[in-house]
């Protein structure tokens, strides 16, 4: 078999920063991370491109940095998709098993799946993901119904869709680098792939990826993603609240949040005060620590309440025994796990990357971009076996150089 290596760029265009990882895929089975690039984001608000040239410049800068550190060129890109325009719905399709002996065939499965995916979308919207839930054969859950005996086969899909213009903007930022986007992956799914194990997903787990502008969430049950969503609240709102509450600029409030912000109020002494800068220069002043914690804790509780509300009745503590995993740059705020546990009524923790991830990529802010590669690899290896490079692939690579 001919050895086939591809260099995949995983790109997350976030509100605060653009992150790029380059993974070397060998035979579509093994993955080595060989390059990293990061650049402060510009022209992005709540995960949406609002200034194309600025967003392109920041993204391309991160891509160039990653290519330089990897010493190679990217062949294709897996792009993370977020934004409040993303919505989801559940749709089912059902067929009667056609065979006289009631053995489920490939055609039955195919028909049920196509029916479940066939729901029309409003104008201007397009599908980002079809996430299949387990099949039901005569009412019982079966992950793979082929050759089982039953009369009625049901397939259900959680379909994530978004505004065509917003999705196209994201893709065009990458195309401006003359690289093709081959996978568009929901940020929450990418982060969830890294933060949960198959057992967690089977038992029920909620993953919250708290970014600067948005919070993406995914709720797993029965081994698959049941619900996904995006809340337009992120770490930037904590900063903004502090700025408003304490009459500070964003540049002043951000370090204050990082130093003293908490997801729950822990300080009992209301008279304890902290310095804004601590350098005793002109403009340096004191604030009650209790007030800072109150502001950030209120926002944290509100954020989790909004997520819980969006999850609706599908989420119950009894069906989320693996608990809540927090990830993303905003999840580093101390006490956030306590707040999440209190709101959702299940154990919550700051998500940890798997052991094979190197030390410099274990930061919660890197989980989405890491998950892009992981999710892309697992979905690819599950879909298509490694094949010999075809002449068409050679020409495609030539043009993509």
């Amino acid at each position, binding site marked *: 078999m001919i050895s086939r290596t591809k260099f995949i760029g995983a790109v997350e265009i976030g509100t605060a920063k653009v992150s790029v990882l380059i993974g070397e895929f060998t035979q579509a089975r093994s993955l080595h991370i060989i390059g990293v690039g990061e650049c402060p984001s510009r022209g992005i608000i709540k995960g949406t491109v609002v200034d194309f040239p600025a967003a*392109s*410049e920041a993204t*391309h800068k991160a*891509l*160039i940095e990653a290519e330089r550190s990897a010493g190679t*060129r990217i062949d294709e890109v897996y792009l993370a*998709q977020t934004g409040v325009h993303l919505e989801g719905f559940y749709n089912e399709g059902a*067929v009667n098993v*056609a*065979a*006289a002996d009631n053995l489920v*065939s490939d*055609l*039955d499965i195919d*028909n049920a799946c*196509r*029916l479940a*995916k*066939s*729901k*029309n*979308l409003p104008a201007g919207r*397009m*599908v*980002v993901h079809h996430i299949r839930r387990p099949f039901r054969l005569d009412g019982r859950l079966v992950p793979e119904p082929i050759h089982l005996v039953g009369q009625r086969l049901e397939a259900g899909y959680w*379909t994530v*869709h978004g505004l*065509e213009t917003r*999705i*196209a903007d994201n*893709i*065009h930022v990458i*195309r*401006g*680098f*003359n*690289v*093709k*986007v081959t996978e*568009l992956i929901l940020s929450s799914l990418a982060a969830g792939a890294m933060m949960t194990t198959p057992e967690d997903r089977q038992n029920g787990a909620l993953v919250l990826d708290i970014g600067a502008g948005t919070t993406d969430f995914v709720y797993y049950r029965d081994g698959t993603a049941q619900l996904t969503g995006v809340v337009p609240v992120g770490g930037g709102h904590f900063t903004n609240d502090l700025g408003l509450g304490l009459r500070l600029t964003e540049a002043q409030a951000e370090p204050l949040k990082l130093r003293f912000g908490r997801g729950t109020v822990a300080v009992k002494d209301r008279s304890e005060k902290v310095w804004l800068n601590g350098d005793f220069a002109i403009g340096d002043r004191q604030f009650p620590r209790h007030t800072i914690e109150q502001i950030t804790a209120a926002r944290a509780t509100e954020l989790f309440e909004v997520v819980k509300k969006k999850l609706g009745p599908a989420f119950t503590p009894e069906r989320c025994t693996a608990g809540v995993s927090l990830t993303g740059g905003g999840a580093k705020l101390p006490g956030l796990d306590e707040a999440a546990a209190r709101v959702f009524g299940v154990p919550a923790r700051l998500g940890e990357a798997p052991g094979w991830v190197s030390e410099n990529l274990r930061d919660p802010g890197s989980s989405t971009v890491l998950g892009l590669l992981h999710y892309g690899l697992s979905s690819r290896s599950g879909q298509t076996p490694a094949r010999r490079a075809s002449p068409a692939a050679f020409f495609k690579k*030539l*043009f*993509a*150089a």
Partner: protein
Amino acid sequence: MSQFIANPSAPRSWRDLPQPVTPRAMSREGRKRLVLAIGNVVGLVLLLGATGWGLYEIRAAWETNPARLIAPADSAPLRGLAVHTDGVLDRAWVETALALPAGASLMQLDLPQLQQRLLAGGQVRTAVLTRRYPDQLAVALQERSPVVRLLAQAGDGAPRTLLAARDGVVYSGNGYAPEHLATLPFLDGVRLVPAGGGFAPLAGLDAVALLLDTARDAAPELLRGFRVVSLARFAADRVIVVQSADVPEIVFGLRDDFAVQLAHLASVLQRGPAKSVNLAVGGNQVPVVPEDPLPAAGRAPAPLAAPPGSGRVFFPSPNPSNQRDI
């Protein structure tokens, strides 16, 4: 039997989005990548075009006039011969040995065959023949150096002088100065075995060459007297017997360093003429047969000088075999 359900209208996916982008919408790096990609394509097209054109030309030539395909090789007749050697052979000898056909082209020459012609005489150790386009043949030779001469007589013919090199190869020798050959001792005690067009290599010549080289460096006055070197006892006793102008028989052994043996010889000859000196015994034992009889009884023998550096004085031993140990 399963029944195919007509495809319901599938909603649009992000994969339906067209991804082509105009260069104007690209960043500078994107345009650079695009130019590189176009360069790759143009390069590939040119390569394919050149290959196709070449194949077309070859096919056309094959169909119309196949002789044209080899014409470039025939079109350059040999005009020059560049000879480089580390020995005495000259260009004339090389031309004679090669016997190149008149008007032959460079590509027609059979280089392995020509190389065999040069090596056949034995004087040439290695020969490298190289085509220098368009019309020159380069010949680089490494020659053997003669160590000894030998006289060979085949049947009733007149004896002829041959030369033997360090590796035992016997050859007739061309281009050497007669005065140089006159300094070489004759070889004796060997049997020439015909092999191929010449003779089989002789054994023991490397030892002879080492002896003569050592003598040339350490005792040139002794070497000048060497007339005949015999290998008659080489196979059986591992000795080389030299007949010199001063001593009819000098026996060199292979066990000790030749330089030491030559020093012993010089020491012995300082004491007076001898008929036979045996240097092959080893250590400081050197049996010598003097040329004149032993001194008369009662006459005290004069002490012999010690070999250089030995620091000992030796006396002739009164043994009946007329031999003295020093």
